[in-house]
Each structure stands twice: as structure tokens, then as C-alpha cells.
């Protein structure tokens, strides 16, 4: 569940936004406030992922370095809720921008984009070549065996076969069995005559 905090002076906007967010799956508004004092006192305990904040809450002199105010929350993504003109260099500190006249679709897509950056953060690209076990599964796949047949012949569970298959797809970037077979032959894992 993605935890969202809203900081915006207008009650109408706070409630409206919270209402829109109900339609964004896997998100939850955990706190909403009209002032920075309350925000900064509650933030440490909230473990929020996203803060949607109106930059006007910050004094003008602080806006250029606004991100620094959140240095103790490096994981927190900031989305600006823009209700009047703001300088673009100030807005560059935000991961996303929601404007007053954005429609529901745009608000959702902004939030989803920011959520995607959250989720991709932990994913190191997988640069390992296929493991010996994965190669064995791949060879079976190329020979036209089904998951349960592969499980039997390698003496592993179907669940494990599926896990290996997911890893093979993730590492190679290839999804179809037909293309995986080409991969197996190009890498001399099997001979063409082995394919049925």
C-alpha cells in the first residue's frame, strides 16, 4: 500500500484530492493538513511514500531549497499541488506536478508515474547469466515440455518451475517459448534436432 500525505491550505482541495485518490488502487491517504508545523511533526511517524504539497505553504525565500526541508525523509517523493503561478525552477524539485485544472485521468497518471519510480528503485538490473538450473528448465521448454513434465523430469515442484521460468524471462527479456527456443539454439544449449 502506497501511503500518501496531503498538505494544502484549502480544505476543499484537500478533501477533493483525497476523494480522487480513492480511485487510485493500492494507495491510502494517511494524513492531510493545512499547515507545515503539523506536517513536519507528524511526518516521521507516518512512513509516507508520497507527499502532495502546495509549494505556496513555504515562504518564498524557502521555495528554491524546498526539497532540502525533507532531507530526513530521503525516500519520500514530492508532488507539487499547483494552484497559482510558481517558478519553474522551484517546481523542478518535485517528482510530479498536479495542477488545478487537471482532470481525473491526468491526476491518476501523475500519481502512478511517481509510484512507478518508487517501485523501480529497489530493482537492480539483473546482469547474472542464466543459472545451471534455469538452463535445464529452458532446455525442457524448448523441447516442448509442459510445466508439470518439466517438474517431473527435473524432480522439482511445479511452483519452482514457474519461478525459474519467471527468472528466465526477466533475465533474457524474452517471453515466448518460440523465441526462447531460438535463444537456446543460438547459445548451443540444444541442437535443432532436439526440437519437436
Amino acid at each position, binding site marked *: 500500500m502506497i501511503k500518501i500525505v496531503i498538505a494544502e491550505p484549502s480544505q476543499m482541495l484537500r478533501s477533493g484530492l483525497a476523494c480522487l485518490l480513492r480511485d487510485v488502487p493500492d494507495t491510502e491517504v494517511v494524513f492531510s493538513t493545512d499547515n507545515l508545523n503539523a506536517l513536519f511533526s507528524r511526518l516521521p511517524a507516518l512512513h509516507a511514500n508520497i507527499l502532495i504539497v502546495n509549494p505556496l505553504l513555504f515562504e518564498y525565500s524557502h521555495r528554491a531549497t524546498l526539497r532540502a526541508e525533507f532531507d530526513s525523509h530521503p525516500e519520500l517523493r514530492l508532488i507539487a499541488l*499547483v494552484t497559482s503561478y510558481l517558478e519553474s525552477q522551484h517546481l523542478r524539485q518535485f517528482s510530479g506536478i498536479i495542477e488545478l485544472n487537471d482532470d481525473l*485521468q491526468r491526476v491518476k*497518471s501523475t500519481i502512478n508515474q511517481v509510484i512507478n519510480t518508487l517501485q523501480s528503485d529497489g530493482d537492480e538490473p539483473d546482469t547474472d547469466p542464466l543459472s545451471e538450473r534455469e538452463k535445464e528448465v529452458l532446455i525442457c521448454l524448448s523441447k516442448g515440455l509442459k510445466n508439470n513434465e518439466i517438474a517431473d523430469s527435473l524432480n522439482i515442484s511445479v511452483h519452482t518451475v514457474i519461478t525459474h521460468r519467471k527468472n528466465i524471462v526477466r533475465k533474457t527479456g524474452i*517471453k515466448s517459448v518460440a523465441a526462447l527456443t531460438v*535463444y537456446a539454439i543460438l*547459445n548451443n544449449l540444444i541442437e535443432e534436432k532436439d526440437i519437436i
Partner: protein
Amino acid sequence: MSNSSDLSSRLSPKMKMADAINQYHSLLTVLPRLGIPLGFGEKSVEQLCVEHHVSQTLFTLISRVYIEQDYYPSIEELRQCPMTDILHYLQQSHQDYLENKFPHIEHHLNTLLEPMDKKYSALIANFYQEFKKEMVKHFEYEEEVLFPYMRQILSENEADSGVHHHKSAFQQQHDDIEDTLNDLTNLLLKYIPAEVSSSERVDMLLDMYALSNDIGKHAMMEDRILLPYIQYLESQSHD
């Protein structure tokens, strides 16, 4: 506001077509399908649309699908757009794939595979042929089943039941085609031995990425324009 990514402020009808294309290259493939020839000098989007009898609403709609990743037109927008023209555009796209894009990629592919060991090259050539067969089948389904059905409900504004299964079957097909194209791209990029001419390979990959992008947009037009509109028409006729 400078941060607005609202397209209506970026691609306006008064804009010079040349400026629009220079900014959004992928629109280049759209023009011939709409019957707008190149060499248009300083003419604006609006002027060219009028000159070549292309609905400006249609042009904007297609452009937005190409430019904005998250664009889902509203039913209101769709109602203002001539649907038969969209069908015509999609059909022209099919023809463009078959007559231009595929032969072009095949030409690259043949040059690329020629110096390779036959047992490998035949395999890849075969994989490509399977992909193409899948595409052709998909086009045929649309042109023989889906588009005629759509023309029928457009003219009669009257739906017969039992067609609701189209949507899911349809999207599944798109995903499969895009996956296959992606598989082929990865094979060419990652796993074909390095001794194969790299300039030919780079050209081919650039074409593949362009094709993949275009087919993705083509699928978006069908999933986000055609199908919602069919559902809308069906719901109207049931009221």
C-alpha cells in the same frame, strides 16, 4: 503555466506542420496514412487538413495518441470525431505495415542473416515469419469482423448482442503481438553473434524500435478509441 503538458497548447491547428513534425518525429508515419503528402512548405496543420479533406478533430486525436503516453480520450471527444475516418486510417495503417514497413525490415533481416550459419539463420527467419503471420491474422480479423461490425452499428446505431466478447479477445491479441516483436528485438540486440555486420544490425534495430512504437500506438488507438466507442454505442442502443 510552463509545466503544463497539455497538448492542446503545444500542437495547435495554427502551428506549421513542419514545426509539428520536427518536434514529434513519430507523427511522420501518420501523414501518408491520412493522405497528406510531404513537401507542404509553410502550411499550417489546419490548412493541410482542409486541403486534404482530413478532419481536424481526427488529426488532433491521432496526434495526441502518438504524443501523450497517458491519453485516454473522453466519449465527448470521440463523439466529435468521424469514426468512419478512424476506421479508414487504421486500415491504411495495416496497408502501410504490409506494403512498406514489413518488406523494409525483411530486407534488413535477409542481409543480416545471409552470412550466418544456416541452422541459426533459418530459425530466426522462421520466427519472423511466425510474427508476420500473427500480424496478418490480426489485421484480417479487424478488417473482416471488427471494422464491418463497427460500420454496421455506426450506420444503424443498433447493436446485436453476443459481440461483447470482442474486447477481451482483442486486447489479448495486441499484447501477444507486442511481446513477440519485443522478443525478436531482444534476440537481434542481445543474442545474435557479434560478427554479423553491426551497421546493418543497428539499422534493423532502429527500424524495429520505430515499428514497435508505431504498432503500440496502433493498438492504443484500437483499445482507447475504437473499443470504448463501440461499448458506448452498444450501451446507447440498449437504452
